[in-house]
């Protein structure tokens, strides 16, 4: 690939990012997932967790914000190709010279970055409405954890989108996939509460490592070893998702061209 072609692909990525940002900013379904649902979960969790231990407030803020990240990725990122099929624009996207993965990456980046608002909204809710003291004890590692969280979530979305497109039966499970990740990733309670056999499933999820890094850096318990492990796992899973998504997209495009079913449900 030449430098000029790469620059053009990046331009497509950022344009997709910009357009998606504008589109989802006025979509009430998305706004519910990004703002309202995490806020309701935050209210519930604050009510349930903080009377026993007020220091849990920052844990709740981060955990409920992460529920917003996951829900947005699942419903918006997961449908990023299927939505193009519904609107009849998938053929045009596939026919243009930029690989489809750049387009999906741009779309997922927009939805994941926008859903970080859920964390800010939960923060404001806990601080202003519930008058709870909130402090990020290790701000710099926390910022690095956020960057890696965004990267790993966006790459996870690159897997979801083609899987949902390839197999509509999996997409029927979309609603049922929301809470299991909240549980397995330990967004709002430690996975130690769960039966031991579920732990390997948690370890396979980038959101688990993201939650682990963000919770630990927020409450100041993150040791260098802990950070290296969580960051390393997020980077590893993000890269693996990226590589595997390229394979999945190739399969989809080959299959769609061979069967002439690109625009068909």
């Amino acid at each position, binding site marked *: 690939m030449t430098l000029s072609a790469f620059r053009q692909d990046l331009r497509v990525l950022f344009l997709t990012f910009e357009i998606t940002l504008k589109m989802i900013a006025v979509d*009430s*379904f998305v*706004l*519910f997932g990004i703002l*309202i*649902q995490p806020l*309701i*979960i935050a*209210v*519930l*969790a604050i*009510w*349930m*967790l903080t009377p*026993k231990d007020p220091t849990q407030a920052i844990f709740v803020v981060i955990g409920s914000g992460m529920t917003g990240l996951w829900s947005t990725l699942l419903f918006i990122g997961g449908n990023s190709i299927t939505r193009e099929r519904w609107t009849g624009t998938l053929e045009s996207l596939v026919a243009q010279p930029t690989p489809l993965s750049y387009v999906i990456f741009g779309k997922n980046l927009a939805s994941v970055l926008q859903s970080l608002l859920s964390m800010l909204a939960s923060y404001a809710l806990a601080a202003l409405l519930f008058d709870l003291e909130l402090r990020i004890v290790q701000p710099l590692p926390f910022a690095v954890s956020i960057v890696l969280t965004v990267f790993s979530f966006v790459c996870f979305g690159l897997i979801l989108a083609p899987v949902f497109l390839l197999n509509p*039966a999996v997409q*029927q*499970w979309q*609603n*049922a996939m*929301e*809470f*299991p990740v*909240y*549980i397995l990733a330990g967004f*709002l*309670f*430690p996975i130690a*509460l*769960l039966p031991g056999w579920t732990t390997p499933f948690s370890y396979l999820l980038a959101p688990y490592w993201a939650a682990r890094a963000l919770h630990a850096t927020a409450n100041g318990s993150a040791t260098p070893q802990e950070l290296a492990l969580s960051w390393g796992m997020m980077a590893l899973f993000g890269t693996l998702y990226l590589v595997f998504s390229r394979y999945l997209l190739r399969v989809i495009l080959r299959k769609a061209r061979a069967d002439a079913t690109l625009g068909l449900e």
Partner: protein
Amino acid sequence: MLRTLRINARLFLEGALLSYVALFRWLRPMTYLASKIMMPLASILFFTYLGTYATSAGNASFYVIGNAIQIASVSGIYGVTMSIGGDRWEGTLVYLFGTPANRLAMFVGRAFFHVLDGILGVLIGLGWGVFLLGLDLSQTDFPALLITILATTFSTSGLGLLLGCVSLVSLDTMFVNNLAYFALLIFSGANIPVTTLPGWMAAISWAMPLTRGIAASRGLIAGESLATVAPLIVGEVAVGAVYILLGYVLFRWFEFQARRRGTLEAF
């Protein structure tokens, strides 16, 4: 008179069945399994683990019962709303309003199968609670619990009928549905005891469906008698009836306005 009754009964039952079948026309066992069995299970597990983490493992039954009964609102809110709103989206509303059919039978019929479906959903939820989370039903008066579940699915379907009418005039149906469903998670007492809520929030709780049904179910599972929880069950039915009445008034108002303004199919 008898003929009119017969026609209305037929309209009620056929309308109820067809709207349910039409709503789930895409339904395959796998879809039902995902949305009506696994999703509620995941929700029960999440809130029960959150609740026991917040309090203690001994309180698991509080959260299991609350969130199992809360499943009634999945059918009540989403199912009923989509049955009512579906007529608008599928373009059949204009034909319905063109018929001389009894509007009350037609309107209430939309909720009938969702009440039955909701009962099944709650029973499955309680079953998950018994098998996975150790819910103890040994003290339970089962017929009384069934009556309570029926009353609760009736009242949540009443809320669904009201929200369904909102979907006839709004494009943000799913936003409204999601808001109502998640608001119930806070206000219904499924996860936060109503007694711990501030006065204004407790007042909202008692004005919503589910709250009394959840309280009555907890009482019955703890060994209380039907007579003890009867006021809660009667209250739950009354709340449902008020929502149905409000929904019906809104439905007729919408029909009147749509005819007057010629906006029956406007989006």
